[in-house]
């Protein structure tokens, strides 16, 4: 999926000049992008625009040259199941469900991964032993890793990660980025990571300063 961004600008706050707001650029399939900015400059807003949660902006976003403003709620639901996956900054896990239940809740929409695959992903991120623990009992860093695995349990062409490694140690960040890059390559998907500054040792196609 090619994403064509045409001079978007949020209408509910005034951001500083950047390489995103009011610019024309493309996010292309198979490429990786880093959106780098200080806190409060609108990273999450940019992700929310792309994920269809917020449309308070001027300008146009086109998915494969189709204006996202024209998408119906049903089309958005389909997109969120089949084409776009996200790790929210606030994670949005359900605290009353276990780590595995949280992941399966998403996975069952498309039955994209088997339980064995999910467990192996959790193992890779060193949270396999926590699969059956309630999300509310996990540390924030552990929850971030569960949320990353959840985001991988669906088909996607665009993966949005909003400060996904903020509470994870460097060893686990390497594990996580490797897992994510494997998945991105296998699917020829676009990866967009938002970060406050760290580039997580990934060789990005492009870095956008926000």
């Amino acid at each position: 999926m090619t994403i064509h961004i045409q001079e978007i600008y949020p209408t509910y706050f005034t951001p500083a000049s950047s390489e995103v707001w009011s610019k024309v650029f493309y996010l292309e399939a198979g490429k990786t992008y880093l959106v780098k900015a200080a806190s409060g400059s609108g990273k999450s807003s940019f992700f929310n625009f792309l994920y269809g949660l917020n449309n308070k902006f001027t300008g146009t976003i086109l998915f494969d040259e189709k204006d996202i403003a024209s998408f119906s709620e049903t089309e958005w639901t389909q997109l969120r199941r089949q084409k776009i996956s996200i790790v929210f900054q606030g994670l949005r896990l359900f605290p009353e469900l276990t780590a595995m239940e949280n992941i399966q809740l998403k996975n069952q929409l498309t039955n994209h991964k088997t339980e064995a695959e999910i467990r192996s992903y959790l193992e890779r991120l060193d949270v396999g032993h926590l699969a059956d623990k309630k999300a509310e009992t996990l540390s924030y860093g552990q929850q971030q890793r569960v949320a990353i695995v959840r985001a991988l349990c669906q088909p996607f062409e665009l993966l949005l990660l909003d400060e996904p490694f903020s509470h994870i140690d460097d060893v686990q960040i390497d594990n996580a980025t490797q897992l994510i890059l494997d998945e991105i390559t296998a699917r020829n998907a676009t990866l967009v990571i938002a970060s406050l500054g760290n580039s997580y040792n990934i060789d990005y196609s492009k870095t956008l300063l926000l």
Partner: protein
Amino acid sequence: MIKELLHKQIHFSQLLFFALTSSLGLGILLVVFQLFIDTQSLFGSSSDLLSNQTVIISKQLGRDNAFTKEEIETLKQQEFVKKVGGFTNGTYRVKGSVSIMGMSSISTDMFLEAVSDRFIDVDDENWNWSPSSREVPIIIPKNYIDLYNYGFAPGAGLPQIDQNLIRKIPIELNLIGTSKREVYDAYILATSEKINTILVPETFLNYTNQLLSPDKEVRISRIIMEVVNPSDPKLLDFLAKNKYQYFQSELLSSRISYFLQLVLSIVLGIGILITILSITLVVTNINLLILKNKQTICQLHFLGFSRKQIANVYLAISYRILAVSIIIALVLTVICKFAFVPFFENLGVQTSTFSLVYVGVAAILLFVILAIYYTKHTHKKIKQMTAVNTSLLTTEI
């Protein structure tokens, strides 16, 4: 799994409250509906006690106590009067003879009157007459039969007669007019509690008046009218002002009937009010269930669950509670039906279990209507909650 997740935030006490309010509202509605059906016969035209409110008026005794056309017109224009009809007299002498059980015939002078069919409380297809008819149907006051059964028959050693037997008594009417006399066969079709006179069909009276005494003018000496409210002071004022006479006791029973209708209407009104209130409570309850889960619902929707999938979880709960409430309401209705039976018997109302079929149909209709309403409402609420820009998620900049 979405079901378990959403159910975790719903408390049993909330569902119990939901079920109770729903059962109460539907129960009252169905019980009142049942009451309404069972009392219908009380207000039907075939019953005397609570039939339409009629008053019979006449002028004071004197030389000319017939009603003029203008007077009748004035009556018709009064707002408290629904229908007006005049009693027509036969303009000839009548001799009636009867032979009971083979005894020699009893003969008596009598009279005939007619009134518009609209006022007659006997619903019988035989109540008509044309010149080609073999017999003339007659309606007599019920008092006459009572007098015979309880006064005359025991003393004379004659058998008592009932409604069926009375029809079989052959009557011969000898009509002696100014220019002609005729003999007709007649029979008693029915008895009336409302109209205290000997009635024949209007067509018969008009025909014989014309045939036997064409020179005599037909006079209307009594008026029967159907009124809105027999206790209306305007009606009583009007009657007093024009010096029209009426039977106090007749007006009294009309008043009882009016009062009963009023009471039933109030019961129905309160029933509907309580039902509306309880449905409002149920809807508020659904809103609460959904609102409590607002965060979860938003997150589920933005994870890729459709609004329909989320709504279905709540709808499954609503439908089940609605079904349970309807069943409880139906049970209540059946219990009430049997509890009311002795009271209805006192009023002389024939109740049949068939009315439960109507109640059953009403219950199914209620279920369908409320289910559709709840469905629409739930979808609307979830749509509002998960709308773009209103989500809790967009608070992250």
